C-alpha cells in the first residue's frame, strides 16, 4: 500500500541534528527552571529556611532555678532544696529488660507485681530516653544498688531537685508546702517561665511568695538529631547554641521563733487546737501552730494516694489550719473589747457596781440568761466583772450597748474581717448583725434582743479565728495599735546577699479610746492572773513578771450555756472549747498570744497552762529571769544567716547527697 521508502542517511542526519537542537532548547528551559527554583530557595527565602533549619536541630532544655530558702528569724532553715534519687532505665542500653527488672526486684528495689506495668511504660517511651522506674530511693537503697551497678547496664541513679523541709511538721501551717503543678495552676502561671519546674507552692509562705521563691529558670540549647536524641559532640554545629543560667529565687526570712514554735507544737500535741503568738508592736508572728499537723515532705516528694487519703480521712483533720481557718465562738475573751467599746460610747461606768446574780432577765421578756455554772458574782464593778469573767454583768453591758454599737466596735478590734496576714487561706470570722441575720435567715424570726445579749459573752453566731484573737490581743497590748500580722520580715537575694527588709504595716490606731479606759481594762486583765478570784489566777500563780490575760470558755450547745454539765460525761465533740489570751510583760508587752484547745473545757483548764509556758519560754532567760527588752523585739535581724545559707544546700545533707548537687 504504502510506497517503498528509501533510507536517506543524509536527510536523516540533518533531521537528527534539528531534533537535537530542539531537545537542547527544552533542556535549557528546564535548566533555567531548576536554577530559578534554586535562586528562590537559597537567595530569596534563605532567611526563612535558615530559621527552620535551626529550629529543627536546636532543642531548648530548661534549667530550673534553685528555689529560695525559707528561714526563721535566726536563719535556721525551714525549707531547702535537696536531691532525691530516682532509678532510671534507658531501654536502648538494657540488653535484657525483663531479666534486669526481675533482678532489681530481687534486690528489693522494685515490687515484682509492678514489672508488667513497668515494661508497658518503658515500651511507650523513646528507646533512648531514660524512663524513671522507681522514685524516692532511700539512702540504703541507693547504696545497695551502687555496689551492684555493674550488673545493670542502662540502669542509672539520677538526682532530682526536690523541696525538703528538714524540720518536718514544724511550722508547716506557716511555711506551707509545695507539690506537683496541677492542671488548674497551669492555667494561671506562665508556662514558659515554669518550663522545667516540677513543684509549685500550694499553701502558706510557699504559695504566697511563689513568685519570689521560684526565681527565673534558665535554659541550655542542645543539638538534637531527627530522632530527638541529643548530639553529644556537636563540633562546628555548636556555634549556634546559646545558654542562659538560671537566677535562683530569693530566700524568705520569717519572723517565726523556732524555739517558741517547737514548744507550742509540743504543748498542743494530743489536742485539737491552735496557738498564735505575735509581737504586738509590728505584727511579727512568733509562733503559728495548729494541731494535729502533717509532714510537708510527703507532698514535695509525691504523696501516694494511700498517704493522702489517710490525711484527709483523719478525724483530727491534720491538713486543716486551725489557726487561720477555724471559726468558733470565742467565749469570754471578747469581754475586754465589749468593755472598751461600752466605756468609750459612755454606756458603761466602770466604777458603778451592779448586782450580778446567777441569772439575768431580759427586760420585757421571760428569757433567762445564766451565769457560768450558776455562779453568783455579787455587787461588782467592771474590774471584778472581767477578773471573775462575770457573764451576767456583760449581759447587762451588751444589752445597754445594743447591737448597733457592738456591731461597730468589734470590727475595730479586727473581728469579722481578715487580719491581712501574708499567707493565703485566712477566714474572716463573723460579727452577726440584724442585717446579716436578715440576709442569711430570710425566713427566720429576725434579730432578737437575746442575740445581742449573748454576743456580750462571745457566744451565739459570733465567730473568730485564733489568729484574729491573737491580733486582737495585740491591739489590747499596744493600747490600740493594729499591726497587720505577718510571717515574712525580709527577702534575701542569694547572689548579692542583700536583705530587703519589709516594713511592718500599721492598719489602725484606736485613738478614740481614752487612756483611762485602757487602764481600767488592762488592770482588770492583770487582775485575772493576780486576783485569787481571777479565772487565770492558778495558771499564772508562779509568774515572775506581770501578765494580762483573759480566759474564754465557748459553749457549743444551748444546753451547755447553763454550764451545769459534767465535763467527763459529755461526748468530746460537744465539750466546751478552751480559749486563752494573754500579753506580757504588762507595761511594755513583747508578746501577745491566743491559745485554742478544742473540746477541753474551761479556758483556764487547758489553754491557760499552754499560754503560761510559752510566755515563760519567750520572756525568761536561762536562769528564770526576765530577759532584757532588745531592739530585736521590734525589728528582728537574723543572726545565723551566714555561711549556712550561702551553701544553698541543706546542711543536713549526707556527703553522697552533697555530691549529687549540681
Amino acid at each position, binding site marked *: 500500500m*504504502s510506497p517503498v*521508502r*528509501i*533510507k*536517506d*542517511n543524509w536527510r*536523516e*542526519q540533518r*533531521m*537528527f*541534528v534539528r*531534533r*537535537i537542537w530542539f*531537545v*537542547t532548547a527544552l*533542556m535549557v528551559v*528546564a*535548566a533555567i*527552571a*531548576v*536554577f530559578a*527554583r*534554586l*535562586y528562590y*530557595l*537559597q*537567595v530569596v*527565602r*534563605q532567611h*526563612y*529556611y*535558615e530559621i*527552620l*533549619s*535551626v529550629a*529543627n*536541630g536546636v532543642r531548648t532544655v530548661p534549667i530550673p532555678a534553685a528555689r529560695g530558702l525559707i528561714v526563721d528569724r535566726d536563719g535556721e532553715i525551714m525549707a531547702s532544696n535537696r536531691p532525691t534519687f530516682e532509678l532510671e532505665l534507658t531501654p536502648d542500653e538494657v540488653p535484657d529488660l525483663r531479666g534486669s527488672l526481675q533482678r532489681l526486684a530481687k534486690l528489693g528495689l522494685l515490687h515484682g507485681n509492678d514489672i508488667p506495668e513497668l515494661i508497658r511504660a518503658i515500651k511507650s517511651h523513646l528507646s533512648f530516653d531514660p524512663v524513671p522506674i522507681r522514685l524516692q530511693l532511700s539512702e540504703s537503697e541507693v547504696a545497695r544498688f551502687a555496689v551492684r551497678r555493674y550488673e545493670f547496664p542502662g540502669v542509672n541513679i539520677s538526682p532530682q531537685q526536690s523541696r525538703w523541709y528538714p524540720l518536718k511538721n514544724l511550722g508547716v501551717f506557716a511555711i506551707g508546702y509545695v507539690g506537683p503543678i496541677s492542671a488548674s495552676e497551669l492555667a494561671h502561671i506562665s508556662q514558659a517561665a515554669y518550663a522545667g519546674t516540677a513543684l509549685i507552692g500550694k499553701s502558706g509562705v510557699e504559695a504566697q511568695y511563689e513568685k519570689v521563691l521560684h526565681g527565673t529558670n534558665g535554659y541550655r540549647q542542645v*543539638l*538534637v*538529631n*531527627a*530522632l530527638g536524641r541529643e*548530639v553529644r559532640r556537636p563540633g*562546628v*554545629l555548636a556555634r*549556634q547554641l546559646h545558654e542562659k543560667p538560671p537566677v535562683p529565687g530569693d530566700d524568705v526570712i520569717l519572723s517565726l521563733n523556732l524555739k517558741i514554735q517547737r514548744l507550742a507544737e509540743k504543748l498542743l500535741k494530743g489536742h485539737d487546737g491552735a496557738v498564735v503568738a505575735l509581737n504586738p508592736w509590728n505584727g511579727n508572728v512568733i509562733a503559728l501552730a495548729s494541731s494535729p499537723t502533717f509532714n510537708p515532705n510527703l507532698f514535695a516528694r509525691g504523696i501516694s494516694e494511700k498517704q493522702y487519703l489517710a490525711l484527709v480521712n483523719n478525724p483530727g483533720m491534720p491538713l486543716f489550719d486551725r489557726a487561720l481557718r477555724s471559726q468558733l465562738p470565742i467565749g469570754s475573751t471578747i469581754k475586754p473589747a465589749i468593755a472598751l467599746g461600752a466605756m468609750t460610747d459612755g454606756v458603761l461606768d466602770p466604777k458603778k457596781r451592779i448586782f450580778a446574780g446567777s441569772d439575768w432577765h431580759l427586760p420585757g421578756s421571760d428569757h433567762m440568761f445564766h451565769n457560768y455554772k450558776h455562779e453568783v458574782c455579787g455587787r461588782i464593778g467592771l474590774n471584778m466583772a472581767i477578773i471573775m469573767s462575770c457573764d451576767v454583768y456583760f449581759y447587762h453591758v451588751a444589752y445597754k450597748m445594743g447591737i448597733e454599737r457592738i456591731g461597730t466596735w468589734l470590727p475595730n478590734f479586727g473581728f469579722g474581717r481578715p487580719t491581712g496576714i501574708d499567707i493565703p487561706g485566712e477566714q474572716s470570722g463573723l460579727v452577726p448583725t440584724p442585717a446579716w441575720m436578715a440576709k442569711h435567715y430570710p425566713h427566720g424570726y429576725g434579730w432578737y434582743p437575746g442575740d445581742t445579749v449573748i454576743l456580750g459573752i462571745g457566744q451565739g453566731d459570733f465567730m473568730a479565728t485564733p489568729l484574729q484573737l491573737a491580733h486582737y490581743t495585740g491591739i489590747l497590748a499596744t493600747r490600740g495599735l493594729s499591726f497587720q500580722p505577718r510571717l515574712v520580715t525580709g527577702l534575701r537575694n542569694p547572689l548579692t546577699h542583700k536583705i530587703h527588709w519589709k516594713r511592718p504595716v500599721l492598719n489602725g490606731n484606736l485613738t478614740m479610746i481614752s487612756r483611762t479606759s485602757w487602764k481600767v481594762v488592762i488592770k482588770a486583765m492583770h487582775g485575772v492572773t493576780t486576783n485569787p478570784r481571777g479565772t487565770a489566777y492558778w495558771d499564772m500563780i508562779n509568774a515572775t513578771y506581770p501578765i494580762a490575760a483573759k480566759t474564754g470558755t465557748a459553749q457549743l450547745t444551748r444546753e451547755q450555756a447553763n454550764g451545769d454539765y459534767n465535763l467527763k460525761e459529755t461526748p468530746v465533740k460537744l465539750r466546751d472549747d478552751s480559749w486563752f489570751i494573754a500579753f506580757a510583760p504588762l507595761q511594755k508587752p513583747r508578746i501577745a498570744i491566743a491559745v485554742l484547745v478544742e473540746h477541753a473545757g474551761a479556758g483556764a483548764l487547758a489553754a491557760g497552762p499552754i499560754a503560761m509556758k510559752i510566755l515563760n519560754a519567750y520572756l525568761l532567760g536561762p536562769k528564770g529571769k526576765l530577759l532584757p527588752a532588745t531592739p530585736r523585739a521590734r525589728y528582728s535581724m537574723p543572726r545565723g544567716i551566714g555561711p549556712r545559707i550561702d551553701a544553698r544546700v541543706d546542711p543536713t545533707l549526707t556527703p553522697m547527697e552533697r555530691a549529687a548537687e549540681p
Partner: protein
Amino acid sequence: MMRQTIATGSSARRTLSGAARVLLALKLDGPLTVGLALTAAYGLLILFSASGGDIRMLIGTVLRLGLGVVVMLALARLSPNLLRRASPWLYGVGILLLLAVAAVGHVHLGAKRWLDLGPVEFQPSELIKIAVPMMCAWYLHERALPPRWRDLAALAVIILAPVALVAKEPDLGTAALIAAAGAVVIFLSGLRARVVIALLLLAVVAFALGLRFMHGYQRARLLTFLNPQAHPLSSGYHIIQSQIAVGSGGMFGKGWMAGSQARLDFLPERTTDFIFAVVGEEFGLLGLAVLLLLYTFVIGRALYLAMQCPDTFSRLLGGALAVTFFIYVFINAGMVTGLVPVVGVPLPLVSYGGSSIVTELSGFGILMSLFSHRKLMG
C-alpha cells in the same frame, strides 16, 4: 618519531599530547572523560560529608566507580556494529531477568527489585535502562525514518513490555525513566510533530487512568508534591526537609561537613536520592552551580558526540543516552527542590549505592565507542 606520526596519521594528530594518545588508544573521548572524572570527584567529596565521614561508604563508591570505569573501557573498545548486533540479545536477557525478578526476586523495602547473585545483588532494571534505547535504535537502524505507525506499534511493544515489568516490582520511577529513554529514541528518529503531540495527549490520559491503579504510597507522593505541608511528618517530610536543607544553605553554604540538616539526620536519604540537597546546604547556590555546570558540560559533550555519529543506530542511541542522562539530573534536582514529585531517582555519578554508577558509565562507554569508531563505519 614525529615524522612517522605525520606520515601515518592525519594532521590533527600532530598536536596530541601523551595523555590524549592514551585516551585515543582506549577509544575514550578526552573532554567527556575529564568531565566525568571531575563530576565523580566532586561527588566523592560530597558523599564523604553526606555520610558523616563514613570511609567504608567512600571506599564502596570508589570500588563501584572502578567497576564502572572497567565496564566503560570495555564497552568503548567494542565496535558499534557489535553493539548493534548484540542489542536484541541484551534486550532479551534483560526481559528474562526482569521475569526472574518477578518470580524469585529479593524483596527489599517492600519492593521486589533485586536478584540475589551470591555476594552481589543485581537490579535487572539497571540493565534494561540501557537495553531499551539500544533495542529501539536497533529496530529503527534499518528502517527509513521517520518511523511509520507500524514501526511505532512495534516500538511501543519493545518499550512497554519492560516498563510494565518494572512498574510491577513496583518501581514506578525507573519504569518512567525507561519509557522516557525509549520515547527519546522515537522523538530523535524524527517522529512528526503532530504525532508527538497526539502521543503526549495519550500519555496524559494514560497517566490519569494510571492514577487509579497506583499503590497508595505512589498516589500519596503525587498528592504530597502538590501540597507537602499537609503531612509535614509523614509523606511531606522528605520534600520539606530537603527544601529546608537547600534553602538554609544560601548563596555560599554552611561549609563542608557543617550542614545541620544532613549531619543531624533531618534530611532523609541524604547519601542517595537527596544528596543534591547536601550540596545545596553545605556549598550553597555556588556549589550547586558548579555541579550543574559539570553536568551541563558532560551532557553538552555527549550530545556533540552523538551528532557526529554517522549511522542511525549510533546517532539515536547516543542522543538517547545523553538526553536520558539529562533527565536523571533534572528529575533528581527537581525532586529535591520541589519542582517534580518525589520519585526514587539517584543523582547520576554522585548518589551512593546501587548499580546506577555502573549503568551510567556503561552508557558513556557505549557513547564513546559509537563516536571513536565512527571512521570505521559506512
